Structure formats: C-alpha cells, structure tokens
C-alpha cells in the first residue's frame, strides 16, 4: 500500500497494518514516546494497537520533546 509518512510518499507491504506495527517498521523502539497523527487526527496512545493504516493514508509520528535544566 502507498502511504504518506511524515509528509513523504512510502510503500509498505500489505493492505493494512496497525499503527503499532507501522511504528515498529519505522524502527520506533519506544512507541509510548511518540505522538501519531492519522489522516489529520491525533490518536490516543491506547489506539495504537487497534487503529489501522490503509492504502493512501497520511500518517505522521513525532517523538515527545521535553527536558529540563536541573541536574546538570
């Protein structure tokens, strides 16, 4: 299937795949630390195992970004 992942066209094997499987394919080792947007909707992390990505879907994922200046 053809997907748009983070704004770029990509081809992924199969007719559909769960978000968590797609994150694994994209080598995301800590899926709890990413936010996923599927066709413009930000998913709850609890949906990652059930939400299916299909042909022509637009998926974006970005890591949580945060930190602090204590404990230098």
């Amino acid at each position: 299937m053809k997907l748009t992942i983070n704004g770029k066209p990509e081809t992924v094997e199969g007719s559909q795949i769960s978000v968590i499987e797609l994150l694994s394919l994209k080598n995301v080792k800590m899926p709890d630390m990413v936010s996923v947007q599927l066709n413009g909707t930000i998913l709850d992390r609890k949906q990652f195992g059930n939400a299916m990505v299909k042909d022509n879907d637009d998926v974006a994922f970005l890591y949580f970004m945060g930190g602090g200046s204590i404990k230098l």
Partner: protein
Amino acid sequence: MIHIPQPVFQGIAEHAAEKAPNEACGYLAGTGTSICDRYPMTNIDESETHFSFDPSEQFAALRWANASGYELIAIYHSHPATPARLSQEDISLANDPDIVYVVYSIPEKVIRGFRVSVHGETGEKLVEPVETHILPV
C-alpha cells in the same frame, strides 16, 4: 555537524531572552546538515527549569517543514541560568535518535548540539557532541 546561519542563531538567542526566566524551545529545520530556519514552539510547561512541546503544534511544525522543503533536523531549548549542555533530565527524555538536541545557554551565550542514542544491549543513553557552527552573514 550542523551549520546554523547567524540570523537563526540570533533568533534563538532573542527567543530565549524573550521567554526568560522560562525556558524557550523550538525546531530547527533545513536540509542535510544546514539549518535554514527555526520554528518557535510553545513551552507548555511554562517553567524556568523544564520544557515540553505541544504535540499538536509539533505536527504543525512538521507540515511547515514539509511545505518549505525542509527536514526537522534539530530541536533547541534554552537554559536560562545553566551551561549549554544536556541535563540528566534532557538525556532521559531524549528518545529520537535522528534529531540533534541543541541547547542555548543565556549566561554563556553559547549554543551546543548533541545526539542521544540508546545502547542496544544495556539500554544506556549515549550522548555525543555534534559540532555546531554558526555561519556568518
């Protein structure tokens, strides 16, 4: 190595000064190792010692980068009162192996970049400095 044009560096410094004493943060975007522009982000922690990006704003930044023909190469945040190096908390919360983590220190007026990866066997976080060059106008 990353290259930051002087006007972008100046923008980071001004953003840091504007938000002080709170931490300022944002994305740096460009192509390859060359930063071309920055995308200031809201620090939803509104804190002097912490920062967090707003996820919905992150996706807006990604759309902006794609529309501009850029990649999101780095993130930056300011240390209002401490040196330009990653804190333990910065390291523990750094999970993207593909991005450069840039810190700007207000007292030092210095910017430094780092890459953070996870050791495959031990799970330990590895921090490597990334040469950060400011390009004169």
